């Protein structure tokens, strides 16, 4: 057995889901699992980049940028239906195994990294227009909760003053060292928290999504981090290209609930239960009635450590992250629409890791509707 075929046994796949193509992503995860492969945490970890669905312009730009971050040997695939997954993976495997082509790819890569665009640079494909409700998992039978904020800003997507997307920094302060054309971190201005010790601390602008494992499809959460604390956040959803998925949606079904369970558990670091939840999901999607579902649900509900680590996170009137997890497992969740501003509000003031858990606990359905970004300050 040579090195390359040995390596192929552990192919790591970075999956990118376009809003609406959850079914395709589930199929991808299933095939990755049954081949003995695994899902990658980041592009550095990945051999294979698989886009599920037809991404719109800004989503495509993010995917292209990430493609340049895969170390190689690398291959990519785009799949739009669950049936197309095995063939796409076979093609990608052949590509990864083609040593000569991989060496050519490696030699042809530029010495300078792909500049990319900043997340706040204005997209011109109209992402962000439209209606602003989205489906979020709520677990009580209270359907009347009105979370509509009347004061949202619909039209204005133009953050002209935040546009650092181009490489032209002639108009910037030239005293500032700018290695790689990227500025140094500085104070956060209005976003920065008052520091009792008058330390001069920096803030970082860290976009979360759309290419991020265990993250809602197409969601882009602009965060301002002070240390690891989210001091401000703004959310938007990146649109798919025209055309809609042929596979039925996963959200709102029993399989969708198990998908949410698997995502939350993977983030909570309980890999064993997460993988088993994904297996239950895939059996449900295949039309089966997985016998182990009840036992797994009891095991997850009973875990004291999990309850302790999720308790109090993402508290809504209806309950916290652990309550929502229990409702998914019991099949008693109710969904209702909410706004992205509510998501941004929920994660503001949390640390980055907790914010990730909270977002996963909301089980956002970004395919349902489109949203406009809404500011949520500190």
């Amino acid at each position, binding site marked *: 057995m040579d090195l390359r075929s040995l390596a192929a046994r552990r192919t790591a796949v970075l999956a990118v889901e376009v809003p609406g193509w959850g079914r395709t992503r589930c199929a991808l995860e299933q095939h990755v699992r049954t081949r003995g492969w695994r899902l990658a945490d*980041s592009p550095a970890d990945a051999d294979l980049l698989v886009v599920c669905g037809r991404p719109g312009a800004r989503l495509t730009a993010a995917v292209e940028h990430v493609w340049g971050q895969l170390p190689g040997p690398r291959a990519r695939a785009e799949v739009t239906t669950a049936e197309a997954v095995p063939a796409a993976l076979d093609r990608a495997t052949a590509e990864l195994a083609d040593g000569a082509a991989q060496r050519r790819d490696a030699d042809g890569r530029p010495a300078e990294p792909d500049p990319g665009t900043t997340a706040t640079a204005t997209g011109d494909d109209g992402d962000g227009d439209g209606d602003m409700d989205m489906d979020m998992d709520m677990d009580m039978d209270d359907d009347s909760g009105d979370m509509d904020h009347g004061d949202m800003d619909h039209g204005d997507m133009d953050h002209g003053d935040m546009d650092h997307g181009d490489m032209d920094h002639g108009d910037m302060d030239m005293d500032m060292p700018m290695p790689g054309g990227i500025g140094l*971190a500085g104070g956060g201005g209005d976003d920065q928290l008052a520091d009792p010790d008058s330390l001069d601390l920096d803030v970082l602008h860290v976009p979360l999504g759309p290419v991020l494992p265990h993250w809602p499809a197409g969601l882009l959460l602009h965060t301002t981090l002070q240390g690891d604390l989210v001091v401000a956040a703004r959310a938007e959803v990146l649109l798919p290209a025209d055309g809609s998925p042929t596979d039925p949606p996963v959200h709102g079904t029993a399989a969708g609930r198990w998908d949410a369970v698997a995502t939350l558990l993977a983030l909570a670091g309980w890999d064993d239960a997460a993988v088993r939840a994904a297996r239950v999901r895939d059996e449900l999607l295949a039309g089966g009635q997985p016998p182990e579902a009840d036992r797994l649900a009891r095991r997850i509900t009973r875990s004291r450590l999990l309850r302790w680590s999720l308790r109090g996170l993402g508290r809504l009137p209806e309950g916290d992250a652990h309550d929502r997890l229990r409702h998914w497992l019991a099949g008693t969740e109710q969904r209702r629409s909410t706004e992205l501003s509510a998501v941004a509000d929920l994660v503001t003031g949390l640390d980055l890791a907790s914010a990730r858990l909270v977002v996963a606990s909301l089980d956002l359905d970004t395919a349902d509707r489109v949203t406009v970004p809404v500011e949520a300050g500190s």
Partner: protein
Amino acid sequence: MSAYLSLAAMLGIAVGGVLLAYLLHRRTAVAPGAVASLPFLSGWRPEEHALSRFEARYYPMTLLFLAFDVEMLYMYPWATVVASIGTSAIVEMFVLLGVLMTGVLWAWREGALRWT
């Protein structure tokens, strides 16, 4: 003395092994050089460098830790003489530890162990 010679040899093996791994990797990898990349930010270009004045909000805990850490300097030699000195060694050490532990309780009440 030969113990430290062995430790030096182990350090040599560790460093040599790491260098060897890098050399081997240059031969086996699809290309010997590294890929230049921007840091992973979900598909976006960073607006600023991540290396920055990071706010470690748990820093009161580091001070608490230092107090105990200095105490450990006494603890190790103490451990070897407890049996020979007897009760007074225990009393003296645990009075000191008791004082430090009271400090921990005070720091906890002041919120030094919570930072989110």
